[in-house]
């Protein structure tokens, strides 16, 4: 569908920023259109847990005035966005924290504000202590889940309830809802985006990153939020580049590695339609000029359980002082993580770190020969809500799967839609790059996206 025929709430950030820059679209008009959309459909999708409509409209009016005076701050200026509850927002501390203090605005939130974005509010996530809050529904079929734990981000972006969102990913929580909801999602390299103001799950695995409708929007959001933060000692000094320079359709000569043995290891737990769509996507990359080769990462089959061991131990350590309260009032997933962390010995934790070190070495060797990896991003299309139990995600986290290995190794990883299942639910390809080489994963994803144009499909809600 052409841009002119699109409702304003379904504009991409890339489209909207150009219209705002050219003063053909007002941030006030855009924000109002999104708020109207929220009023119309969030009763079905349940994405928002704290809608900040009044302050959002005030921010939109300020953006409009600044732009009218010639002070356009950049592509995020006047763009309505929303964030996963896990990120602190001044005046709306993270509900998920329960027993830890918030910091005002998380650094990534502050950076988006500095870039002129309009903050619409906080979005639902898995494991909130408020058990009475209805879980978000997948806009492609409201009988199905959005994927977690950035559940509200998936529903909101796919449903036109914001133009982009910040999520958090410890074991797939950006990539999973992106895949289930037909969106683009980026878990940048560990340290690329500050974790300051992010309610911790696992200090060495938590990644903050953008979820949006197209790859261009991820580049714009990453430009706004990337960079070193003195308040996060794990944030990196590696120079930030302009990620929009990746937005060119060219994978000619790009070497794409396919970890075939690992995919085969996961295949018994992966729907055939996912393997088919991902193979088709890899064939498309080949037809666009990429050189595709199978690669071996011998220890990758242990990466998921190593990720889980580190996750649950760091979760236990982060919540030790409040563990009694978590066990009394926390959500089932959080209680289970405490038990699993308690059951893990120090030798297990150290062994998990050694596996992490070995996987990094093996991947470093593989990346001598290839520019990126391509593999599935999910075991199947989004399941029905009635078929999913409160701790089902944990079963995924302890057997070989597609997400945890890249939290463990901290590599930049993109989720990009690669088609639909027989019952019209989205499926995604995962593209993994070298440390701090977000440019290559964005370029590969953008080239594929522009060729296939899956983003032109939109859900009917």
């Amino acid at each position, binding site marked *: 569908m052409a841009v002119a025929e699109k409702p304003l709430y379904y504009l991409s950030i890339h489209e909207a920023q150009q219209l705002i820059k050219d003063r053909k679209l007002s941030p006030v008009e855009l924000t109002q259109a999104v708020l109207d959309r929220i009023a119309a459909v969030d009763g079905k999708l349940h994405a928002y847990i704290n809608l900040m409509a009044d302050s959002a409209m005030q921010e939109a009016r300020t953006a409009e005035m600044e732009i009218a005076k010639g002070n356009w701050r950049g592509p995020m200026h006047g763009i309505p966005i929303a964030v996963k509850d896990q990120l602190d927002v001044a005046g709306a501390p993270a509900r998920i924290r329960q027993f830890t203090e918030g910091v005002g605005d998380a650094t990534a939130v502050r950076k988006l504000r500095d870039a002129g974005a309009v903050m619409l509010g906080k979005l639902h996530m898995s494991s909130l202590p408020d058990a009475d809050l209805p879980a978000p529904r997948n806009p492609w079929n409201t009988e199905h889940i959005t994927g977690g734990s950035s559940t509200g981000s998936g529903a909101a972006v796919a449903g036109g309830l914001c133009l982009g969102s910040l999520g958090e990913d410890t074991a797939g929580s950006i990539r999973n809802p992106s895949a289930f909801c037909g969106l683009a999602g980026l878990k940048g390299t560990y340290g690329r985006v500050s974790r300051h103001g992010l309610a911790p799950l696992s200090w060495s695995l938590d990644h903050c990153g953008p979820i949006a409708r197209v790859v261009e929007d991820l580049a714009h959001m990453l430009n706004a939020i990337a960079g070193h933060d003195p308040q996060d000692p794990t944030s990196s000094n590696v120079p930030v580049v302009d990620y929009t320079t990746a937005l060119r359709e060219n994978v000619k000569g790009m070497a794409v590695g396919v970890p075939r043995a690992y995919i085969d290891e996961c295949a018994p737990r992966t729907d055939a339609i996912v393997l088919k769509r991902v193979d088709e996507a890899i064939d498309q990359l080949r037809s666009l000029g990429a050189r595709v080769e199978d690669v071996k990462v011998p220890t990758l089959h242990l990466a998921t*359980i190593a990720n*889980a*061991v580190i996750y649950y131990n760091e979760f236990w350590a982060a919540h030790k002082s409040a563990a009694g309260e978590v066990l009394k009032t926390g959500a*089932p997933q959080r209680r*289970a993580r405490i*038990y699993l962390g308690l059951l893990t010995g120090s030798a*297990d934790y150290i062994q998990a*770190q050694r596996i992490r070190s070995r996987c990094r070495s093996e991947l470093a060797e593989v990346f001598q020969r290839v520019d990126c990896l391509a593999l599935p991003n999910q075991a199947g299309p989004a399941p029905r809500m009635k078929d999913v139990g409160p701790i089902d995600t944990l079963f995924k986290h302890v057997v070989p799967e597609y997400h945890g290995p890249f939290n463990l190794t901290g590599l930049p990883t993109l989720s990009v839609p690669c088609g639909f299942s027989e019952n019209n639910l989205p499926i995604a390809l995962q593209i993994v790059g070298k440390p701090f080489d977000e440019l290559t994963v964005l370029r590969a994803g953008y080239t594929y996206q522009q060729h296939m144009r899956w983003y032109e499909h939109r859900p009917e809600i």
Partner: protein
Amino acid sequence: MNKLIEENLLAVLKREGLEPKPGDLEQFSEIIDLYMENLKQLHSVNLGAEELAPVFRPEWTGK
């Protein structure tokens, strides 16, 4: 849940001054058993004596 694992979990909970929420051990028994089974896999690979976990470095790289 495997009896030994359950006894171990109850012992460490007690050591930490914690009590499981009623019903949790039954509700989580399957994931706990699966996790503990897969934990053994972690030690199935011979990493050799020199494969280190993250290394301590004494230099001051702080803020």
